[in-house]
């Protein structure tokens, strides 16, 4: 039950990454990190209590979104959804991410919610996190004892649980530079326009003419974490993308997912339409973002 009163906490305001990780070293198991706050504040008004909140508001450098044709895209911890939408580079080179940001939550939330926050939330219904899963990426985690990199493929362990340790601060996400012929797209289904996804899918394909050289296909709302669809990826790599192949893909999807009944939809419905959604997101990627 939501409360109008939040549990008491100490607000800690580090002025550098090193101060932030020092605070995490001493309070890590009793601290939450605040960037956009769109998940944290909801939790605090519900039943979540934590002794310390470490705000990144004063930490410089974390709000950088940079693109380099060689090195790819770097998304800092405080980069918001609106930053993503304003980036012509993201729109051009990572359409899946741009499309996910476009429909993410509501205008007010997009102003403050961060991309990394969406990844750290480890929701099986995340939109931006799903697009990035398909695009691939590496998360930089820093603690008092140093830095480490974690591949997104290894980051989500179970519902709401990630590979981040309590004393680690997520600094940035590195998304590889697009390969030649790379096409990506994101697509979701909701009850109304402004809503959490009830089913979402994202793909990143490396195309050579009609032939798909490599594929990453990811789905949300079909298990405790976001999932990749290895069988579908394999089928994509086999042959040119034809209507028959798309049908085969559509028929295969259900065997790779394990959705449940919840308030947003039913397991039965998700199993029935997941293949349709994957087929359509592939078409969307191939059409360069134009829905046909």
């Amino acid at each position: 039950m939501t409360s109008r009163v939040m549990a008491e906490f100490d607000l800690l305001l580090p002025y550098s990454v090193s101060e932030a990780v020092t605070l995490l070293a001493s309070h890590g198991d009793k601290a939450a990190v605040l960037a956009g706050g769109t998940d944290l504040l909801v939790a605090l008004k519900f039943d979540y209590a934590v002794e310390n909140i470490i705000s990144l508001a004063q930490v410089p450098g974390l709000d950088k979104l940079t693109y380099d044709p060689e090195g790819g895209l770097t998304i800092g911890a405080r980069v918001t959804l609106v930053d993503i939408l304003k980036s012509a580079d993201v729109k051009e080179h990572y359409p899946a991410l741009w499309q996910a940001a476009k429909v993410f939550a509501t205008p007010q939330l997009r102003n403050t919610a961060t991309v990394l926050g969406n990844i750290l939330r480890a929701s099986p219904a995340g939109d931006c996190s799903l697009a990035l899963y398909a695009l691939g990426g590496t998360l930089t985690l820093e603690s008092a004892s140093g830095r480490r990199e974690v591949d997104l493929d290894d980051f989500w362990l179970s519902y709401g649980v990630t590979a981040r340790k309590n004393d680690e601060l997520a600094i940035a996400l590195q998304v590889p530079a697009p390969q030649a012929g790379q096409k990506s797209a994101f697509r979701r289904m909701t009850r109304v326009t402004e809503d959490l996804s009830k089913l979402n899918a994202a793909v990143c394909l490396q195309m050579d003419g009609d032939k798909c050289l490599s594929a990453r296909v990811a789905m949300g709302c079909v298990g405790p974490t976001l999932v990749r669809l290895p069988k579908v990826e394999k089928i994509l790599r086999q042959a040119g993308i034809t209507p028959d192949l798309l049908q085969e893909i559509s028929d295969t999807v259900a065997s790779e997912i394990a959705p449940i009944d919840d308030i947003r939809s039913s397991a039965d419905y998700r199993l029935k339409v997941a293949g349709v959604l994957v087929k359509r997101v592939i078409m969307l990627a191939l059409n360069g973002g134009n829905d046909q």
Partner: protein
Amino acid sequence: MEDLKVVGKRVERVDVRAKVTGGALYAADVQLAGMLYGKIVRCYDHAHARVTSLDLSEAAKCKGVIKVLGPKDVTQKEYNASVLDMMVSADMRGVLGDIDDQSIFTDHVKHYGDAIAAVIATSEEAAERAAEKIRVTYEELPVYMTAEAAKHPDALQFRPEKPGNLAFQLPEMAFPDNAYAWGDVEDSFAGADIIVEDSFYVPKQKQCQMEPGTYIALYDDQKRLNCWTSTQMPKLVQKKLANLFELPMTRVRINITVIGGGFGARLGMVLEPETCALAMAVPGRPVKLLSTREEDWVTSPSRHPGKYWMKMGFKKDGTPVACDARFENYKGAYYVDASGTAFTTGAWLGGMYKFDSLRYRGESYYTNQSICGAFRGYGNPQTNFVMEQMVDRGCAELGVDPIEWRRKWHKTIGDDGWCIGVPYNSCALDECLDRASAAIGWTEKRAKYKNQTGTVRRGIGVAVMNHTSGAMPMLLEHTVCDVLMHQDATVTINLACSDMGQGSHTTLRQVAAETLGFPYEDVHMSVGDTDAAGFDIGAHASRTLYVGGGAVKQACEDVRRQLFDRAALELEEDVGNLYMEDKIIHVKGSSNKSISVQTIADQGVNNFMNPETGELIGQPGQIQGYASFFPPHNAPPFGATIAEVEVDMETGEVRVIELVNAHDVGRAIHPGVVEGQLDGGAQQGLGMVLTEETYYDDKGICLNNNFTDYKMFGPSDMPKMTNILVENPDPTGPFGAKGVGEAGIVPPVGATANAIFNAIGIQILEAPITPEKILKALAEKEKGLS
């Protein structure tokens, strides 16, 4: 058409500046000296249980706590939060079976969120912290979430005086055979060539008004109970509270705060009894109670959900011969509005088409759902979902065009209205249908969408409705208005009608200005203080403009008459020879003989003696107009909506492409206000038919009493929409106006369902029509064919 100067104009709304700048004072914004805060402890673990122990001791020790109250610490009087008992005669009250079955706090939990106890503390935070320390243990009882479960012979009885948990059925005394009926349906069905019949489900839709319930109460040093509330019904709530706390009306004062939306959620009492009970426990200190959204959701009423069965019979030539229907609603835990909606749901059905015979039965069963009550349309959207789909099924079997059939068979002037024995006195539904049909291109699209085969299929559907302006003769329709003329010739209108955001204070002010012949700027609306205002039954039943406007008009005519009487004396002319222009009363045909309203008003107040003559200057006495108004009719609004949709055959998703709403509004006093009502109504109608439902688990725990999981249509979901205002003045409405507050929500419900039927060839019998249901129905159809 007469020459109107203020009526029909898009004047600036009286509330708009305060609302868009954040200056409007909602109850939550009101701060009083020495304010205390209440927090109610509710049962969120069970939907049906007995309290086996209640320990308040730890809470009482908490910092900042002033008092902790259990069920025995407040009035033991039971009450009924609804106000229907005050709008019908004492005899009818008995017939309608109204009972007082609610208490401030309970030891018998009947729904998720029932109130157990409360804390009063010096801050909201302290109250909430202390409330967490209240320990309650429960004995779980079986839950009954549907009428079917509640009427089972082994089910526990909610109230001994309501056997079988049947809270209400149409009473035999007023409705023979417990039915709202004419003719003999069995006989008529025997002569039918085509019979269609099915059982539907209509959802538990929530009003989702923006402002969650917030209340302040103060039992002051004059032993007066003051309550600040955004109620839709100040005068009836004043009387209800007077009854509950056994006080004379002079010792109960309601202060209306700015209302952040009503839609029926603020009909009657909501948390006024609890807040006042807390205030009575701490005399001299104001107590504020702020609901969370989740709390508001389960303590204020919803639309009545339930099973709705209907059967219709037609002759081959389309003649509607019989309609038989039964609405079994899942009433909820308490009696509130058990009778009203159960009746009106059938009244709207009876008011629509010229069936030879009709029989409607309405039954309300106690269940462990949160209470149902008034919600925009009051049974009409439910009937529209069912009736209009059945008509379209009939039309499909008859092979006739749904608009042509409706045009031919809808009731009109002279036919019995929604109330048998009260004929319709105006009806412009044909024009509504014609203009809507032309605006959307009905004929072409209907032809074009036959025999589609693609993945995405389009459909177009129509629905019509009848409604009411006030509920005469079912309810006591009465509003008192007085008009005070100041010495500078401006006026203050004093009445109790609430403006819940629909714009009624603006339109009432227009009616006043037009009637007086004064500029809009010279009129001020004084509203919201029950100490000052006379009787009124509140803002509901699309009545405020029709009945409140009637009262304003009559009171302003009284002022005008007094002005003319005095002018006649001063000018030594017959009243019949006078006319007013720009607030100056002239003598016809005599250009230099006149007196200004300003002079009359000033002399009435400042009635000085002429020192030379010793005579009084002008006519003495401040002018006041008065009306205690009972409307002669219920000026029926009619309306038609045509909806165009697109259905994705692979996912079952529905996209509404366009809506055209054409409404017989009598006269649009303020076209922008009317359009606002139709827009908002359509938005809620689309939500009801496509997305909105309250879900419970098998233990009766509500799963979506919040905006994360209860999905309404938002602005980004709305289709292209056109509102056509058909102005055909009603003979009884102020300047011909009819009520439009509820009409807008009704026909989009049936029209959208029918558009889906047109697109996919299947009728979905349960609202909301979700993609999940559509896909399932498509799969079943395919299975049936293979």
